[in-house]
């Protein structure tokens, strides 16, 4: 269900939300022209909220679900401590956070990441505390390819609420029960009693690219002759995987200061030398070509084989910011042609 709202009502509502929650929204930096997701403060930029810059912000929203780093346990190493080396809950207070003006691709990435993380308590906790207010794309960028990988500039998957543009102003639509509850506690205009719009039942149809990849022979893709050419220019940095909303790999380290220790979970990338490094010193992905191949094989073969969709929402961040212009769209075509 949706209601009409006007600009003034929307801004007022958000002003109210800021006083109660942490609210984040994409904001353009005046000097660099780059859009970053920023925490909303008292001085809200209404223009940025009403007319967001087209395309996605520089970094994705995954940091709100997989903080970099996240404290997952605390412990003491004090010799006299009876509970030394016993892992304890971190005891971090998790309040509601609101993500505003989130593009369909980024919102969809949360739905995709929820598949491998269905039983991950940390991710699920973050999911529970987050309300995503989406914003469809009136304009796409040349690097956007959401439709190829099963999304749409007007998709709502992963959103709780969505701000829509109508012929004569704006509308606010409720998509999930979480969204409805949130709106009940934090009403906007005449939103009292709004129920979620019934969503398509029984899973959406997979995009062609996912079905194609599922049918392909894994080893034929793995042994394809093009991997060395693709990998040749790659510098094995983490720009693509760290900016990518659907890259979710992590590593764990303990850090100790004095007698207090924390167990940290932080981002890892299949481009990095420690990724899958065995204690023996052997690494099954020890060479650049193996790392590069893993990134694409994971997104377009291993993930669809396991979960159905491809693990890419087509936001184009990796295309824009790869320092050596490795264009994932070209790699997809090469894989499709195998």
């Amino acid at each position: 269900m949706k209601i009409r709202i006007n600009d003034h009502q929307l801004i007022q509502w958000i002003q109210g939300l800021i006083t109660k929650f942490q609210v984040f929204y994409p904001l353009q930096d005046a000097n660099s022209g780059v859009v970053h997701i920023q925490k909303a403060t008292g001085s809200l930029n209404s223009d940025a909220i009403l007319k967001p810059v087209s395309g996605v912000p520089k970094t994705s929203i995954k940091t709100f679900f997989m903080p970099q780093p996240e404290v997952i346990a605390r412990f003491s190493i004090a010799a006299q401590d009876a509970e030394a080396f016993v892992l304890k809950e971190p005891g971090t207070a998790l309040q509601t956070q609101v993500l505003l003006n989130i593009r369909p691709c980024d919102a969809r990435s949360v739905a995709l990441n929820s598949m491998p993380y269905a039983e991950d308590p940390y991710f699920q906790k973050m999911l529970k505390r987050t309300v995503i207010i989406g914003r469809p794309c009136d304009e796409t960028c040349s690097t956007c390819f959401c439709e190829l990988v099963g999304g749409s500039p007007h998709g709502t998957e992963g959103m709780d609420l969505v701000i829509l543009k109508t012929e004569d102003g704006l509308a606010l639509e409720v998509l999930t029960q979480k969204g409805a509850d949130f709106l009940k506690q934090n009403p906007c205009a005449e939103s009292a009693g709004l129920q979620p719009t019934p969503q398509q039942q029984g899973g959406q149809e997979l995009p062609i690219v996912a079905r194609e990849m599922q049918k392909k022979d894994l080893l034929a893709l793995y042994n394809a002759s093009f991997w060395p050419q693709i990998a040749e220019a790659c510098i094995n940095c983490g720009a693509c995987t760290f900016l990518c909303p659907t890259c979710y790999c992590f590593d764990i380290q303990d850090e100790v200061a004095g007698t207090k220790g924390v167990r940290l979970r932080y981002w890892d990338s299949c481009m990095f030398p420690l990724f899958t490094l065995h204690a023996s010193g052997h690494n099954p992905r020890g060479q650049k070509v193996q790392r590069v191949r893993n990134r694409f094989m994971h997104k377009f073969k291993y993930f669809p084989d396991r979960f159905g969709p491809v693990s890419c929402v087509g936001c184009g961040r990796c295309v824009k910011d790869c320092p050596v212009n490795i264009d994932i769209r070209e790699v997809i075509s090469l894989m499709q042609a195998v």
Partner: protein
Amino acid sequence: MTVKHAELTQEIQRQAKELLASGEVAAFLGFSAGSLPMTTRPFVARTPQEAERLVWNSFCTVNLANYLPALLKSLEPPRSPKDPPPTGPLPKVGVLATGCWSRNIVVQIQENQVDRSRLVILGVPSRGMVDRKKVLAALQGKEVLEAQEDDHSLRLKGKWGETELSRWAVVRDNCQSCRHPNPVLFDRLLDAASERQAQAPFSQIEAIEAMSSDERWQWFQQAFASCIRCYACRNACPLCYCSTCFVDDNRPQWVGKALNAPDVLTFHILRAFHCAGRCTDCGACESVCPMGIKVRLLTQKLSKDILTLFGAEAGMDVSVPPPFTTYAPSDQNPFECDTCSSKGKKE
């Protein structure tokens, strides 16, 4: 007046084809066109046909020297770690080199990372490369769908229409402050030497030096606050060839691996010091940073110090050893620490 980039592209293709066809080189390292406006790809041509894909323009910002050690090694006959190194002449690589890249090759030769006799260096006097981020800033973030470069201007087209920018205004900081645009080491020079020479090469550094120490600390924290630890800066750098970087080590772990500020800053300051006396200010680190961080200001500060203290510039001459690799008992050591007032020996 320099030869236009289009003409250079033709010349590069012609010479690369000739080198590959005659068998003088087994591979030619250059750039091919990128899929987006204002991008290029480092590219290795292995046949004369492939050499037709080589391009030269204002967006060749990645340092090709970075690829040389691995490329040379890939052309050696396969052997296991215990086999003796191959003897006899090994296949050669042709490579393009501007002033700074040629200096990086000199450093690589000095540090035994590449073998000079296996390189055919095609020197290209540099006109300065364009910084995509400066273009984006000048256009207030609007998406460029087409970029055309003329000798002194860039014409950018997108949904908003068309904008013309002065080329020099959007040339990278390191190119604007460059004093050695001409290759120092080459087998063939593809163009007349450039006469440009920056008058105040360290002006960005002097501005930071002029700050109080509190202000500098603020600046340092601010400047690297958005770093995502992707290591593109490190990996694009031809000096960073350690098989295990100190940040990747985990036994022992020298530095935390996530985005806690002390760890991020430690990574940057240490990496910069590891490049002291070796950095040629090629600007690759800064060009590849997805977050637009001015990474090279740290290494540039060290270059300034090395020049002031030792009168040395990295990679200018193969026969002059880098300042930090030599030692003589008679070395001056007038070290005095302001904090603990310990004095070094003065000789």
